[in-house]
């Protein structure tokens, strides 16, 4: 009002102040950007940490399972070895037993059980059997029972039941 002229547009800041403000503004943007970048990185690392923690937990579980399997396998192995040893022993025992069979005695069949041995065979006389066959059996087994059946030709069929521990 009252003026013949209109005022020129006035900037709020001086030119150098503007430059400073732009500089400070850019710096702030960069600072905030970098801070955000770091924040995102931290978040990503936290996510990774969680992921790895889960993996560790899973792997620990797997490790426990594998340990159990290992224990089972060791047990199996021990059992296998035990069986192998027993079989070997049995094999040797059978071999020894067969070596013990005297020539006049003929074996028809042998039943081999866990702690029992049943032998079917033919012997010319009871005495031969009692002399040659019985002593080694009695030395191996705790209990020995022998049943004789006379055949028409005068020889005997026999059934020898031998028990390692408790007799049935």
């Amino acid at each position, binding site marked *: 009002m*009252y*003026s*013949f002229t209109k*005022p*020129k547009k*006035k900037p*709020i800041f*001086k030119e150098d102040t503007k430059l400073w403000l732009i500089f400070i503004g850019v710096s702030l943007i960069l600072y905030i950007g970098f801070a955000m970048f770091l924040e995102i990185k931290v978040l990503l690392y936290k996510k990774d940490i969680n992921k790895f923690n889960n993996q560790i937990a899973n792997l620990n579980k797997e490790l426990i399972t594998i340990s159990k399997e290992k224990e089972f396998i060791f047990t199996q192995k021990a059992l296998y070895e035990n069986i192998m040893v027993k079989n070997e022993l049995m094999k040797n025992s059978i071999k020894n037993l067969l070596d013990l069979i005297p020539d006049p005695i003929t074996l028809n069949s042998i039943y081999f059980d866990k702690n029992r041995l049943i032998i079917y065979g033919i012997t010319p006389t009871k005495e031969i059997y009692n002399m040659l066959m019985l002593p080694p059996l009695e030395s191996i087994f705790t209990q020995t029972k022998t049943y004789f059946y006379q055949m028409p030709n005068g020889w005997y069929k026999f059934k020898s039941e031998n028990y390692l521990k408790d007799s049935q």
Partner: protein
Amino acid sequence: MLLKIFIKPNFISFYKEDKFYLLNEQYKNDKLIFEEKKEFNTKKELINYIKEISSSNPQTYVSTVILSQNQGVVPSCDKKEYKKLGIELENIKYICIKNRYSFYTTIYELMELTKSFEPDFLYPIFALIDIKATSKHNTLYILTTKSFNFILIYKDSIPVYSDIFEIEEKTTEFKEEDEDEIEDISDIDIIEDFDDILDEDIENIEEINEPSVEETKEEYRIIEDIKNALKEYYEEGGDFIEKIVILDTLNIPQEIKTLIEDEIFITTTVQEFDILKTINQISRENV
């Protein structure tokens, strides 16, 4: 705007008389926080000062006032009124106030001032009177400066008459000379003028307290200018003036009030007037 709270605009007002007078005010939230008055002998010094302030604060508003005879008031905003008064519209620029009256100045004056100082606001001197005028009915305002006496008469809140009286060059030369010389050239005219006042108001002789020749001349000139303006106004058919207000920038002695009342019989008041402060006041309202 929130930023406005932090902005501290500078308002620089200046005008030219015998030298350049300048006022630099700085405001914050409409409170004056800094004020500086300056006087410059050359235009270059003034422009340098303005440039210095403007570069340190972009929010600097420079304002000035037209202190010449190339301006006036028309009690209308109608172009026809201008034509009726014989004012050529091609040579002037006018501003309409409240759609009731207008102030005008010549394009030449406008160009001269804007080219030299590039002010943000350029006011007619009558605008300063208008903003300060409180009584706007049958009131005569006279603004006294070293070079001119500006007269504005109001009727029904409209300035209906304006006149500008130039103070003779002689006075300026007179002031610039040494005091010793003043005594030497105290010529007959001044004494005669002084006698006139004495004749008309003998009772006030003692109250005058031996005024200086310079002061007496100023008072005489003011009274003469008021008389001439009133004469012309009444001749044009103006209503009777009930009040005279002197807006004083020269520190005229208060005795002038009695002198005028005794001579012209119109109630007179003398108000101190600061041109620069008033300019800044209008500029602040405009920003």
